[in-house]
């Protein structure tokens, strides 16, 4: 009883209301994220239809192995995040910290692979529009447009990952100080929602950028 009153912020009447409010708040925020990425996806759909051959050629220039690997990494991190939320619900502090740490490591793996392998490779090959663009194939300007999209989409996604990593760090510190309980784990839960959403964005980016380019 004592812990449940301490867990309740003064503007709420009960824990159920507080829990519902924080989840709803995060879902609404995710709706804004859908629209944020939505603007970019709209543009991508448009130009992909206009310049299909160039976009397919661009897609074939990406390394599908790295894409698939990173997809698996992100899905793993989603699993560990879901398990972290479960551990918080059950009040298992050690397990919570373990799963949060795993999620953090997987998230950093994703960003690391992206930076050190993919983008570095693209830079060396001269595939970075505006910064180092040396490609001289057929229809190179529409290919450049494709790579604009590639970097904007994956870049903004990676930025979300970095923010997620920051949130996870804060969560781990809070969990270490014993700030969560089965009554009060909203912060873990809504961070989980955010993390899964970033995963979902990648679930769409992977086929849109890497796969549908006539690889057969």
């Amino acid at each position, binding site marked *: 009883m004592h812990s449940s009153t301490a867990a309740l912020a003064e503007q709420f009447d009960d824990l159920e209301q507080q829990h519902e409010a924080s989840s709803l708040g995060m879902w609404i925020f995710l709706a804004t994220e859908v629209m944020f990425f939505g603007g970019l996806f709209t543009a991508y759909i448009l130009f992909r239809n206009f310049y299909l051959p160039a976009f397919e050629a661009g897609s074939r220039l990406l390394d599908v192995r790295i894409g698939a690997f990173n997809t698996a990494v992100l899905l793993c991190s989603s699993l560990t995040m879901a398990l972290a939320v479960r551990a918080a619900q059950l009040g298992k502090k050690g397990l919570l910290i373990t799963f949060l740490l795993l999620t953090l490591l997987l998230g950093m793996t994703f960003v690391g692979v992206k930076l050190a392998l993919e983008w570095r490779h693209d830079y060396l090959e001269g595939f970075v529009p505006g910064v180092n663009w040396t490609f001289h194939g*057929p*229809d190179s300007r529409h290919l450049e447009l494709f790579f604009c999209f590639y970097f904007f989409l994956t870049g903004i996604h990676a930025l979300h990952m970095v923010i997620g990593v920051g949130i996870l760090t804060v969560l781990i510190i809070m969990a270490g100080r014993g700030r969560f309980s089965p009554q009060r784990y909203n912060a873990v839960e809504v961070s989980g929602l955010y993390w899964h959403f970033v995963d979902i964005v990648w679930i769409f980016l992977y086929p849109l950028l890497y796969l549908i380019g006539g690889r057969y």
Partner: protein
Amino acid sequence: MWQGFPIRPDQASTIARGVDHLYYFLTAVDLFFTALIFLAVFYFAVRYRRRSEQAQATQVEGSLPLEVLWTIIPLGICAFTFLWGSSLFIRNSRPPEASTEIFVVGKQWMWKLQHPEGPMEINELHVPVGRPIKLTMTSEDVIHNFYVPAFRVQKDVVPGMYTSIWFQATKTGRFHFFCNQYCGTNHAVMGGYVIVMSPDDYEQWLSGGIRGESMVSAGAKLYEQLACITCHGTGKGPPFVDLFGRPVKLTDGTTVIADEAYIRESILYPSAKIVAGYQPLMPTYKGQVTEEQILQLLAYIKSLSSGGGKVTKQWEREGKATR
């Protein structure tokens, strides 16, 4: 009557009158409803003013028939206005087949206008009265807008694509045209005059001024200068005869119509679309040709076509007949 205090610009094109009629109709609707609301508010305000602190209001919570009424009536007016406005717009959007095509290039902060027979004008456009004129427009830098209030026409002038408007002047005189899309520092002075002349005066103007060569022959000259002829005249590249306005089959199996946008793209970015049966040999001409020169090449390619180039050809026939 309204000489000193005009309520509308000159009606100087075939389009103007129709637009004005619709405008008057809308003004009448506007005045009617404004008066209705003002009078109702005013009447209620006086009639039901609070005469003492004890005064009671009579509670009326709503009325479905009234709600339906004031939903249906605006809806009807809106539907009617929409149909009127849209049909007029569609009619005003498509130039007649027999239009004279004048090419317009906007740049910060001036207008370059070129007549098919050659004369190039800056911030001035001479046109004959009573003949449909189509302006094909593009921009060298930012988005501009070509706006002639007296003709009730305007359209944005967008870099990288062609837009067009048309008009047929109904009276002679000087009419202001403006840039109506904010385009930077000197936006406000990026305008000029359309000078509408009687056909005789126009012919005189055409022959009097410094005659450049016609768009078509300038284009033909470029065709040789830029050595287009070495490939497109020999079969190494696709030929231009009867090209404009026709479908073209590409190597990737798709088909495009050879319109202005396609030809412009093929000059500047030859590798974007490769015609089926040809090798991607052509170098880019980006940076080597100006927007005006592209328009000249376009005019030349159009002139080689019997169907799609009808606009230019017909004009040339007329032009020769009157000269």
